[in-house]
């Protein structure tokens, strides 16, 4: 483009648009019979509040980038995808009202998104009532399909059980003679769930492990001096945390300054925020095979394409990686696309919502984070492998890098279909294939 740099920007834009139009026209397949002029989908993510930085905004951006890509390739079944982005922030009544607006006022074909577990529990009954295809994309709670059936609801990312079970298995693979563990988790449902899964898994895998402490600072507390002092006094061999975002960065900063990482092995079950620069030696999970770049994942063309597209539009530092929420949102779009394509093939024309939902059940599809199978929750809940790694300082690059990466296969860290996660753990992981 440097050749054109003297032309007016307007002219460049015009030419660019023209080329784009031609390309888009050439690429777009003829829509199937009965197809709507466009496929409207609601995309819900935190655009404000503390969860927007580490999760919401990257997820929204990823969805945007990926929808553009789908449209460049001719849309879904020849129909252009039109996203409507909305903010997830606010109490449940606001989130449900917003869902109803998307369904009844905007008349979207599907809604995807939801990062908060509470919202992932509040929305499904409404989705069933209004018969709107809903793809939950990032939240962690295992209650969604373990407590009820929701014919119109799917979740294309693994629930948080893989993070806890994966953490326990990874800790033991690195540090087999662990004696004592302690937890420091934010005092809310995700913190409680994460700790319950990790702690129970540890007890199953190594029955002589002693739990010395469980600390519950409030969400967004920001000041952890007392907690860190207590952990320094107790010196557990392993400290587990499900902190995320600003809280994780803050905790890591304060802990590092006081040498907590030298006394205990710290394991974090998610990489929403970038603590990469702060805490070498920490074990980190990525809520599925997402942010952490793995050798075999490098061969995945979708992953390469996604990273390139994201980097091009939103920029990404050289040794940086994209937040896991972003991968999850792309997974949702890939699932939606695969379900529609399968349903179109089966119906021979544009499918009804029920036909798409039927096609979605038990579906398998490729994503930038590998192949995803809707294997549990009656075919509505995805299973994925759990990825963990150790942060190590690389003197050659001058930054911290992920090393000793391990993937625990989906069948190793997920319960079989129809079994509740905590029962599965307490019964000693029956049927697990590791």
């Amino acid at each position: 483009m440097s050749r054109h740099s003297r032309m007016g920007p307007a002219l460049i834009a015009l030419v660019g648009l023209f080329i784009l139009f031609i390309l888009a026209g050439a690429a777009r397949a003829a829509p199937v019979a009965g197809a709507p002029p466009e496929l409207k989908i609601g995309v819900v993510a935190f655009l404000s509040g503390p969860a927007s930085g580490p999760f919401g905004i990257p997820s929204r951006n990823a969805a945007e980038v990926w929808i553009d890509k789908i449209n460049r390739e001719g849309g879904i079944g020849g129909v252009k995808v039109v996203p409507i982005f909305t903010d997830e922030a606010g109490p449940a009544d606001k989130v449900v009202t917003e869902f109803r607006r998307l369904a009844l006022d905007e008349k979207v074909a599907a809604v995807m998104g939801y990062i908060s577990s509470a919202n992932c529990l509040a929305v499904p009954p409404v989705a069933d009532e209004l018969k709107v295809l809903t793809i939950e994309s990032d939240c962690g709670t295992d209650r969604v399909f373990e407590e009820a059936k929701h014919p119109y609801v799917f979740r294309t990312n693994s629930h948080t059980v893989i993070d806890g079970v994966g953490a326990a298995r990874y800790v033991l693979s690195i540090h087999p003679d662990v004696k004592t563990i302690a937890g420091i988790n934010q005092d809310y449902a995700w913190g409680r769930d994460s700790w319950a899964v990790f702690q129970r898994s540890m007890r199953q895998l190594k029955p002589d492990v002693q739990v010395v402490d469980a600390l519950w600072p409030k969400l967004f507390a920001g000041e952890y001096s007392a907690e860190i002092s207590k952990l320094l006094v107790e010196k557990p061999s392993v400290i587990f945390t499900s902190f995320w975002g600003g809280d994780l960065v803050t905790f890591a900063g304060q802990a590092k300054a006081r040498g907590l990482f030298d006394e205990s092995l710290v394991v974090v079950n998610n990489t929403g925020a970038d603590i990469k620069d702060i805490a070498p030696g920490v074990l980190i999970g990525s809520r599925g095979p997402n942010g952490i770049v793995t050798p075999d994942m490098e061969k995945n063309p979708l992953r390469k394409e996604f990273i390139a597209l994201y980097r091009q539009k939103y920029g990404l530092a050289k040794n940086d990686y994209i937040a896991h929420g972003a991968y999850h949102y792309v997974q949702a779009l890939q699932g939606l696309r695969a379900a529609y394509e399968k349903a179109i093939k089966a119906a021979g024309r544009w499918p009804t919502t029920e036909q798409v939902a039927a096609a979605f059940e038990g579906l398998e599809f490729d994503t930038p984070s590998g192949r995803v199978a809707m294997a549990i929750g009656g075919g509505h809940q995805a299973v994925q492998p759990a990825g963990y790694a150790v942060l190590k300082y690389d003197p050659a690059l001058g930054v911290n890098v992920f090393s000793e990466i391990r993937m625990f296969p989906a069948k190793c860290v997920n319960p079989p279909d129809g079994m509740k996660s905590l029962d599965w753990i307490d019964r000693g992981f029956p049927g697990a294939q590791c």
Partner: protein
Amino acid sequence: MRLLLVVALDGLTYASWLFLVSAGLTFTYGVLRVLNLAHGNLYALGAYLGATLVLRYAATGYTPALAYGLLFVAAVVVGLVVGPLIERVFLRRVYSRDEEVQLLLTFSISLILEDVVKLTWGVNPVFAEMPYSYLGRVRLGGINYAWYPFLLTAIALAVGGLLWLVVTRTRLGKVLASVIADREVSLTLGINVPRVYTWAFAAGAVLAALGGALTAPMFSLAPGVGAEVLVTSFAVIAIGGLGSIGGAALGSLIVGLARSAAVYFFPELDLFAIYLIMALVLLFRPQGLFGEIEVRRI
């Protein structure tokens, strides 16, 4: 014994932080009788500006020692620009209105500033931890402590002492006392009350921003930090008595010690320890520990 020492140290450093972030709120209320709900946003502005300055400065590679000065610069800039702006343009127009209108005005400013911060600094966590780690650590009671929280304790003592000196030992303090006691009489005495209000509000804003700027090396900043701080400092000054600097200090100390004790002995209580104390204190001493009973006028 060693455990008690650790609990006391943690409580003390947390109390220092609480005092720094709540002193501005109680000072403003003391002089203007307005509870400034935008206090948390001034805190956030100070914190973000402080973090930005420090990060920029750190990138130049000069001696880190000067970064501490930048935190004060950030606080003064925010306080002296935004403080008078809020007071002169908005607050001044509602002094004659009901108390709830004044509260709502600061509430709406808080909503606006919340998004101003988001539009300026984005939503990604900002963390300028360099001044925190640069001071290194010290071994006390058998475990490592960072020096920085003790620096905060020293600054908190200095700020508290300075405020006390100004209020009790200077002419300015007498002027303030007169304005607080009776606005009209002060006017007839030739005191420029509007100007006192502007400066008092600005001073409160500087204190709020200073609390934020000094926090920036300890906590990472994310959208919504202001609201958290507002509610916490609310509770602290309600315990100590609204408008009382000594009360804020005592309130901070009580809450700080209670929280660090809770972490050690009842980790499940951490979440609402502060509100429980506040409810208890207000029930038995409604005006707070150091608050004055207001004269009822017929």
